C-alpha cells in the first residue's frame, strides 16, 4: 500500500508491501530510515528547523520541526525493533531560492539541525540529495529499502 507523508508529518512501516512517499520537499527536510534486518522503515517531512519558534505547535505536532521530528522518527523506528547499527539513513530536500544574499536560510538551517540530531545519536548519513533549487518527492520502498527521488519528472535512486 502507498502511504503519503504530508508536510509536517511522519509515517513508519514494517510491511514489505508498503511504499512510503512524501511529496514536494522545498526547503523542508525529508529523512528516510530503514533497517533491512528488522524490516522497519520510516519517513519524516519537517518544515522548520527549531521547535522553539512555536512551542505550542511543537507539542501538538513535533514532526513539523527538525529538532523534535527527527528525534521522534528515531524513537518510532527503534520502538519497532530497528537497530542503530543496521539503519540506512538518507536525506533529501533543504532546497533554497536563487538567494545569493542568503536572506532565506530555512533549507540550510533544516539541514544543519538534522546533522546535529543525527550526530548526537551517532548516526551517519548514507546518501543525500540536498540544497539546489528544485522540488523533490521521496519514495521509500519497504521491500528492499530502495529510496528514490522524483524531481522534474524523473525518478532516480538515492
Amino acid at each position: 500500500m502507498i502511504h503519503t507523508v504530508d508536510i509536517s508529518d511522519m509515517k513508519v512501516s514494517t510491511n514489505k508491501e508498503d511504499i512510503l512517499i512524501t511529496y514536494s520537499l522545498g526547503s523542508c527536510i525529508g529523512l528516510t530510515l530503514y533497517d533491512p534486518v528488522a524490516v522497519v522503515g520510516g519517513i519524516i517531512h519537517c518544515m522548520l528547523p527549531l521547535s522553539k519558534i512555536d512551542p505550542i505547535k511543537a507539542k501538538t505536532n513535533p514532526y513539523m520541526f527538525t529538532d523534535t521530528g527527527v528525534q521522534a522518527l528515531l524513537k518510532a523506528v527503534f520502538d519497532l525493533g530497528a537497530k542503530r547499527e543496521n539503519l540506512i539513513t538518507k536525506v533529501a530536500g533543504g532546497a533554497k531560492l536563487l538567494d545569493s544574499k542568503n536572506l532565506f536560510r530555512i533549507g540550510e538551517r533544516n539541514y544543519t539541525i538534522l546533522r546535529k540530531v543525527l550526530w548526537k545519536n551517532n548516526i551517519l548519513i548514507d546518501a543525500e540529495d540536498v540544497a539546489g533549487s528544485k522540488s523533490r518527492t521521496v519514495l521509500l520502498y519497504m521491500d528492499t529499502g530502495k529510496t528514490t527521488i522524483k524531481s522534474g519528472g524523473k525518478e532516480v535512486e538515492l
Partner: protein
Amino acid sequence: MNRRDEILSKVSTIPAIPTVIAEIRKLLADTDANFKELSQVIKYDLGLTTNLLRLANSAYFGFTKSVNSVHQAVVRLGTKRVYELAVAAAVAPMAKRAINGYDLSAGKLWEHSVAVAIGAEQLASVLSINLPDYTFTAGLLCDIGKIILGTFVEVNAEPIMAMAFKLGIPFDVAERRILGIDHAEVGAVLLERWNIPGCIVDVTRWHHKPDGLEGDKLVVDLVHVADALTMMGGIGIGRDGLNYRPSPEVASRLKLTTRINELVVCKIMSGLNELNNIFTLKVVDGSKNGS
C-alpha cells in the same frame, strides 16, 4: 503569430468571472451602500453565502460566538472579506485543476494560492503593519497566470528547465526568454480582462520583481515574501521548484529576520488548517492527520 501573441490570444478564451463580483465591487466603491445592500446581493449566491458563514465562524478569526446570517457575517468580517471570498469562489474551479506544464497535480496551485494569501496577511501581522484591504486577494491571484501558461511551458519544458536549472536563471526569466512572456504577466493580462482592480493586477504582474513596480510597494513586497516562504515550505510547488530570485531590497524594506520568516511559515500552516473547509484544501499538517 509569434509565441507571445499566441499566448495572449489564449487569455481571451478563458471564461469571464461571475457578475456577482462586479456587483460587490460596485457596492464597495459606493460609500453610501450599506451592509444590507451588500447582503442582498450575496444571499442569492448559495455557495458564497455558505462560505461567508463558514469564514465568519472559522478559527482563523478567533470569534467564540457563532453567527448565522449573511448580514451578521458581513458585519463581523467587514465588506472586504466578502469581495475576497467572491473572487476566491470564482477562481477556485480553474485554479484547482491539474497543470501538467508546471507538474502540479489537481488542487496544488490552489493550495499554493491560498497559502500565499494567508502568508501575506500573517507577515503583515507579525510586522505590525496595517495592511491594505486587497492584500489577501492579491496574494491569492499572483500565480493565476500559470493556468494559461502551463500548456506552453509543457511544450517547451526542456529548454526552459535547462535554462532555469542548469544556468541558474530564475524560472520566470526563462519563461520570458523562451516563450516571450512569463506567468506573472499572463496573470496580469487575465485579471485585467476580468476587471479586477488595478492594484491587484499590479501585484500579480510584479510579484517576482517587486522593485519594478512604481509607487507604493507594500502589498507586492508582502506577496513576494509570502510566495517565497510558501515555496520554501513546499506548498503547491512544481517543476519550477524554488527557482526564483528573492529581492534583497524587499527583505531590507520589510526588515525581515530568520525568526520572522520562520514564524510566518508556521502561521501559514496554521492558517491553512483553519481555513481548510472554506477553501477545500487538501493540505493539512500531521497534527490533524494522525500518523
